[in-house]
């Protein structure tokens, strides 16, 4: 504040905007802002002139007109008489589905591969190295195409499941793996099923509570309670009891071969499987490296200290190494999730109907509204990535506070 009194305002000269450090940053900022605004205005002006010349005014009314095409997989109700907007929504749901499935599988694969790559078992660690390097160094697009082709070539066709055919269903006729997808039984909910589900939810909460209790006992009293079996029991037993007590209100609808395809059950289509497998394996390879780096970042002294305290290797990993490694692992892990979500736009290569394929593919093609479609797609991906960024920042802040 003293500087203000030292330099009276009267002595302000225009050149101070450039030479005086107090004003210079303001000058720079205003200039930058001005140039950016000018640039945006210029682009917008060009666009409006060009579009007017072509007679294409930006217009989103196509979203409410009839789409007229079918989508191979939709989790929400859809057929060709619905609108383009609905088709876009189907695509969005499909993108989110494959992204979530992919993130879960990639994490599992990545953690297993990362740990195994550090294993002393020569064969296993070599194999994992080949896997990681192979997937990291070849474009994802190529992997998606190859995995899709391999999956269709190596699995039987539905007609092979006929009497006397070469293939048969697994698990007592409940699962069929075909080159059109995997068919699994579909649960049919009858009256009373809500009660069973409620019990399941309650016992899930119960299991979580037990886990918390066990941890508390461990940290406060040093008593190590068995973790896995009681938790499993809490989770399963009440649900089973409720299920049978209510006379089995949930039954399964098994897939059956009829006509050209299996009917009934749930079909996990082949494009979804291929995209899922490819995305998880590809991202899994990156996650494996992250996990490996995270584990190796924990100094060896930690392991030795834990051993000298008499902890067994498994427990050392769980209680000493992993909690510390997590802090290193999680931020890059989340950015891999983000990558996976964005990479799911490569679904175009296997014909999985994600948002790029519906809104940015067939809809764009039929309506010719390139500008509008690309804008909507861009906004959708941006929203997802900003949401994930928020989560990441929140986590980082939480973790940083605990650091000593």
């Amino acid at each position, binding site marked *: 504040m003293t500087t203000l009194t030292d330099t009276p305002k009267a002595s302000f000269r225009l050149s101070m905007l*450039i*030479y005086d450090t107090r004003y*210079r*940053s303001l*000058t*720079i*900022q*205003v200039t*930058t*802002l001005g140039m*950016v605004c000018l640039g945006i205005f210029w*682009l917008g002006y*060009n*666009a409006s*002139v*060009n*579009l007017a*010349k072509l007679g294409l005014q930006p217009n989103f009314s196509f979203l409410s007109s009839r789409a007229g095409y079918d989508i191979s997989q939709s989790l929400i109700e859809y057929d060709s008489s619905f609108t383009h907007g609905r088709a876009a929504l189907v695509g969005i749901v499909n993108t989110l589905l494959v992204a979530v499935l992919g993130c879960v599988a990639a994490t599992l694969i990545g953690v297993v591969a990362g740990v*195994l790559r550090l*294993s*002393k*078992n*020569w*064969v*296993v660690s070599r*194999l994992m190295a080949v896997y990681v*390097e*192979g997937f*990291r*160094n*070849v*474009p*994802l*697009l*190529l992997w998606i*195409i*190859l995995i899709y*082709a391999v999956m269709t070539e190596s699995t039987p066709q539905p007609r092979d499941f006929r009497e006397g055919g070469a293939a048969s269903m697994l698990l007592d006729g409940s699962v069929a793996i075909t080159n059109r997808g995997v068919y699994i039984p579909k649960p049919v909910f009858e009256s009373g099923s809500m009660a069973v589900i409620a019990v399941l939810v309650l016992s899930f909460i119960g299991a979580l509570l037990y886990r918390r209790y066990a941890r508390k006992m461990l940290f406060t009293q040093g008593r190590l309670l068995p973790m896995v079996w009681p938790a499993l029991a809490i989770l399963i037993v009440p649900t089973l009891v409720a299920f049978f007590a209510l006379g089995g209100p949930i039954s399964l609808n098994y897939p059956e071969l009829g006509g050209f395809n299996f009917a009934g059950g749930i079909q996990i289509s082949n494009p979804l499987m291929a995209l899922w497998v490819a995305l998880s394996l590809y991202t899994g390879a990156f996650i494996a490296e992250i996990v490996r780096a995270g584990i190796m970042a924990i100094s060896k002294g930690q392991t030795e200290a834990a051993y000298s305290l008499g902890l067994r290797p498994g427990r050392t990993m769980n209680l000493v190494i992993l909690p510390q490694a997590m802090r290193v692992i999680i931020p890059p892990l989340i950015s891999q999730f983000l990558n996976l979500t*964005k*990479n799911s*736009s*490569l679904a*175009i290569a296997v014909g999985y109907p994600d948002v*790029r394929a519906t809104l*940015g593919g067939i809809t764009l093609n039929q309506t010719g509204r*390139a*500008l509008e479609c*690309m804008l909507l*797609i*861009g906004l959708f*991906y*941006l929203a*997802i*990535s*900003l949401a994930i*960024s928020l989560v990441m920042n929140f986590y980082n802040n939480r973790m940083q506070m605990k650091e000593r």
Partner: protein
Amino acid sequence: MSDKNVSFVRTKMLPQSEPPIGQRGVVKWIRENLFSSWLNAILTLVSIWLVWFVVSHLTPWFANSVWAAESLSQCREIRDATIGNGVPSACFAVITDRWQQLLFGFYPNTEYWRPVLALVLFVVGILPALFTAIPRKFLIGTAVTPFVLFWLLWGGSVWTTAAGALGFVIGYYAFKLLTDRAGLIVGVGGAVGISFAYWLFAAGPLGDALHSILPIGIQYVESKNFGGFTLSVVIGVSGIILSLPLGILLALGRKSDMFIVNKLSTGFIEVIRGVPLIVWLFTASLILNYFLPPGTNFDLMLRVIIMVTLFSAAYIAEVVRGGLAALPKGQYEAADSLGLDYWKSMRLIILPQALKISIPGIVNTFIGLFKDTTLVVFIGLFDPIGLTNAIRASTNWNGIYWELYVFIGLMFFVFCYSMGRYSLYLEKKLQREHR
């Protein structure tokens, strides 16, 4: 036996006996490394089975491959005649027939040496930047390399490129001169203005004039003739080179205290990173033209390079930001205490160190970008994957599938793996230096 009092004293050492069979050599190694526990044993067996499964399925296909044929049907005839009907057999004849196209696209046959030489020059050119053991004065060579590469790849008159490059020299001296006289802001503004004015009005006529006096040039190759791995490498390399300055500026902007600059940089980085490259590429091919002055029309490859540059600039910015954050705070404080202003402290103290730490990250960004160049197939450019479609559309090779993908995958692997090794080596070296 008879003399009970004599105690037994061994007078010489027994030779050391061999460890038991289970504790030595291969057996011990196998036991310790492969079968140390039940879990390990199962893992080993599963792994071995997996390897055997893959190898046993692929070997016959490779072993029976046909390397000399003119079409797929001829391949099948040769296979039927020599190996047997319907036996799995690869038809790598498509590679021997079309490998030039997969590597160079439609680049003129007689000019193949140019992309190859350009690649070699590029590697030689970046050496001084990558290996600190090389004297710093070679960095001038690095600065000249991009222009030489441009001229080599696209050809045309040497004077056109030289006249373009002259703009940078003019800009540099204008910057020096103006900064000394009137300060930094005027310097930057003036230099940019003068360079652009030169490029707009003087560069073209100057190049033409010089060319008419002394015509030196090589065959001009249009960018639509670029294809295959040449295209991937050109897009990848120009994307990374052009995005470095922009990325560094963005990183500095994001670390800046100036509110507007900070928010603008952050916004730009997040928007670019939040949207998949494939959407940006569609933007480049479908709607970028709408945003240019009416009547302008960019070459598609140029539009793609612009988009890829912006895209990788956002990633580079994040890598450099990581490098800036990793520097100890003392470095910033030391620079300030020496009385250096912002740009001097950045240029002389902070950036040299931060960039050095960032190089592995930059190389990794480049690998990612190089792999992502395959996405240009969706906007109709002939990268290696795009060429597979074109090759299969010729009646000779319609129906061929795996062979092309195997070849392309292998090429990408070689490129990316070697670069990945280099970045790993750098990381190790940096770790050693830091201790």
